[in-house]
Every structure is written in C-alpha cells, then in structure tokens.
C-alpha cells in the first residue's frame, strides 16, 4: 500500500471507528472499505480489503472498542484468506478451496449487498402511497348485502315432519312376543262347531271373529290347522287340500259315511283323509306347526 493511500485509509478507518456501532456487521464494514477503494466492486482488490479490515480490527482493539464476535471471526477468516492469497498457487493443498475462489465469493457477497442497498433505495425512492400519491380520502363504503337463499325442499320438509312424528314412538328395540292363539283354544272352538259343518268349509272360516282382521291371523290359522289335524287324528273330521298351498277344507267325518267323497281329480297325495290310523304325513306337519 503506498503511503498516501495508507494515510487516506487511516483517516477512513478512524472515521469508521467513531461510528462502529453504526455498522450492520462485518460485511457492512467490508463494503464501506471496498467502496473506499473507489473502483467498481467487480475489480475490488480482496487482498487490499483484507488488509484494511485487519487494520480496522487492530485499531478497534487498540482503542479497546468492544467488537462483536462476528467481527473477530471475520478477521480470522480474512487473515487466513490473505495468507492463502499470498502463497504461491502450487502449494495449495488438494482438499482446500481455491483462494481465488474464496476471494471471488467475498466479492460476490459485497456486490450483492450493495445491489440490495441500491434496490432498497430505489424502492423507497418510488412514489409511496400516503406520502406521494393518495387514495380516496373519503372512500364510500360498499355495502355488502349478504343474500342467503335458504334451501329447503318438500322432501326435507316431509322427512323432517316424519321424524318429529315418530320421535314419541321410539322404543328400545326388542321384539315383542306376539299374542298367540293357543292350540287348546282352537281345539275347543273347532270341537264346538264341527258338528254343524256338514260341507267342506275353508279352514279360515273357523277362526274366531276377532282374530280375523288383525296381525295375529297367522297365529290363529296355525293353531286352528294344528287343532284340525288333532281332530282328524281322532277321526272326528276329514281334511282336504286340492293343490299345494291351496286352501284347506274340513268337514264333519260323519258326512263321509253318508256321502262318500264325490270329488274327483283329487290327487291322493294332497288329500288327507282322516281315518283311525293317522297318516305319517299329517304328523310331520303337526310337528312343524307346533
């Protein structure tokens, strides 16, 4: 460093030191020093910059100024960089980063920081809202009218009504035992009326009146059918069914003696004639029904 430069630099460094708190870190100091070289940052001498920085730190220590650790870390790194830059290139160790590369990176960082500073200045140099340009002072409020279309279909309405209507009738789920028509009852009833039944009569006609129109009809039919089988077994009545699942007819057995069955075309298999010996088929049906 020529003498003149050095003097200038010392003046520079001293002014830096007065304002050491005003720096935003070591990079800021480096940028300020680099600008003092008065060259384009792309041509800045990193070696000279390192020397200047080290001088700055040395001066600060002499003046017992408190320097933050990062200033010292940077100083150490720059001292290292300086020594590397001064070494002949051939002595470079294999695994080390090229000193020129390190210097280039530092130069890049300085350029980038300066670019961002200029950008910040350009940005804040623009016309700013509320300072240079103004929005409407009395903005007219836009009334936001929220219109809600309430959606409700007839289905929703009906479904909802049905739900309410059923609310009171909810019960814990358990299958209630159906009221059943006992076979004994059916037997008693059948015995009492069979004498008055000379003609073939449908089984359903023997159901008691109040069991006919209710949900318990099936129970009454089953019991009456079982009772009829019992009476047939006893030889009191005759049963007849003309087709599978067809209606079952019954009549007083005495009618068989007086008026033998004239019905023709009946399949033997489906005619259950009562006799002293009950047929197995009838038994099996009885068993099922009971």
């Amino acid at each position, binding site marked *: 460093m020529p003498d003149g430069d050095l003097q200038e630099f010392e003046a520079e460094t001293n002014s830096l030191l007065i304002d050491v708190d005003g720096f935003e870190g070591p990079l800021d100091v480096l940028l300020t020093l680099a600008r003092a070289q008065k060259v384009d940052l792309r041509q800045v001498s990193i070696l000279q910059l390192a020397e200047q920085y080290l001088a700055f730190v040395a001066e600060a220590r002499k003046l017992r100024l408190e320097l933050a650790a990062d200033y010292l870390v940077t100083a150490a790194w720059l001292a290292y960089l300086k020594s590397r830059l001064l070494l002949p290139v051939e002595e470079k160790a294999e695994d080390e980063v090229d000193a020129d590369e390190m210097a280039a990176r530092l130069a890049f960082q300085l350029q980038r920081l300066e670019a961002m500073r200029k950008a910040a200045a350009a940005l804040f140099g623009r016309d700013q809202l509320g300072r240079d340009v*103004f929005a409407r002072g009395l903005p007219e409020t836009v009334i*936001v009218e929220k219109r809600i279309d309430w959606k409700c279909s007839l289905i929703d309405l009906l*479904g909802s009504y049905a*739900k*309410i209507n*059923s609310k009171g009738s909810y019960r814990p789920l358990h299958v*209630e035992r*159906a009221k059943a028509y006992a076979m004994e009852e059916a037997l008693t009833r059948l015995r009492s009326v069979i004498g008055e039944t000379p003609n073939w009569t449908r089984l359903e006609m023997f159901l008691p009146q109040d069991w006919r129109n209710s949900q318990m009809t099936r129970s009454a039919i089953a019991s009456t059918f079982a009772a009829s089988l019992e009476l047939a077994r006893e030889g009191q009545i005759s049963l007849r069914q003309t087709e599978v699942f067809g209606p079952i007819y019954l009549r007083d057995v005495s009618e068989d003696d007086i008026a033998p069955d004239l019905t023709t075309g009946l399949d033997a298999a489906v005619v259950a004639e009562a006799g002293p010996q009950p047929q197995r088929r009838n038994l099996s049906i009885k068993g099922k029904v009971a």
Partner: protein
Amino acid sequence: MSEDPQAAQLAQVADGEPPLPFAAPAPDEQDRMIEAILFASKEPLSTDEIEQRMPKGSDAAEALRRVEAAYQGRGVTVIRVAGKWALRTASDLSFLLREEAQETRKLSRAATETLAIIAYHQPVTRTEIEEVRGVAVSKGTLDLLLDLEWIKLGRRRETPGRPVTFVTTELFLGHFGLESVKDLPGIEELKRSGLLDAKTVAITPQKDDDDILEQDDEDGPGEEPNLFN
C-alpha cells in the same frame, strides 16, 4: 391524445416543470389540483380551504366551477355539503356500491322441523310447536321463517292468554309447489312412497286393513317385520 390541446398542456406539466414561484398555475393545472385535493381529502373542504392549499394566485372558486361542470353527468360528481365541496359517486349509480354476496344455505333442522309442524298443524301456537318438537323454538327460527314469508301470524287462539298462531303463506305453497296445504302428503303416503324408512317411522298399529289376505298379498315377504307390530 396529441390533438387535444388540453392534453398537450398537461403533458407539459407532467414533464416535471415546477410551478413558477409567483405565476398562477394555468387553469387546467388548477383544475387538476382541485381534483386531487377533493379526491384525497378526508372531509369536505370549503373554497377557502382549497385555495389555501393551492399555489398563490390560484382562483379556487373559478376552478371549482369548471371542475363541477366537467363532472356533470359523470360517474362521480362534485357536490356541495354545508357550503363545502366533496366528490361523491352519482346517486343513480349507488346500486353499484352494493355488493351482493349470494349464498345458498340449507335451512337448519330446527327451522325445517318448525316449518313442518306449522304446515301440518296450522294454525298452531308456539307452545304447541314446542310440545311436538319436544324442545323450545327459538325466536330466531320463527323470525327467519317469518322473514322468508313462509309463515305468518294467524288468528289468536281463543284460549286463556289468547296466544298467536302461525300459519303458512301462499309463498310457502309456491315455494314447495303445493296447490294447498291439503296437498301435503299424509304419513301413510310418505311411508308408501319410501320417504320414510322403517327406522325413522313411528309404527302405528294398522287399524284399517280390512282384508288380511289381501294385505298379505300386498306386503309379501319383504314386509315381514310388520307382523309383530
């Protein structure tokens, strides 16, 4: 643009020539200033207040007259309020400052149920609605339905306290596509149409089935659970 002498003058100004210290700005320039001042001001300004802000030699009263005339019939007009000046959007365009945010929302369960009860039981009092629903009916729910004009007040019930009753409206019938409230399907109909499934429907004893055999045929095996009803 270049044919317009006004514009040419403005362009000159825009070129950044500062107003001369003691010369009054050109009338066009004064008009621009009036525009900017009125636009940016947070409150209406008197002629004096405006003139004070303008460069010396400006005639705010004159400029205001010009600007007022220039804005006649436009989307924004210069108005006078209590002797002061302000810019306002033209009153015939105020509808533009209304933003309609339309939103479709499903009627709440409470509202749907309340409406259904009113529809089926009308005229019905609030207490009766609550009895059917088993929970209180909020004022908001009734207000909403009244607002929608789906329900209205009916005659007062001639019972102690003479409570008001609610009935449905013509609009209600229109909305739901009904000729009359008699068209509301009955429970049986709902059930048969599959609207009500067995899980949600109250199962009432079928008293009106005349012919068991017929019933059997109709229901078939699928209806088995009915057997134990």
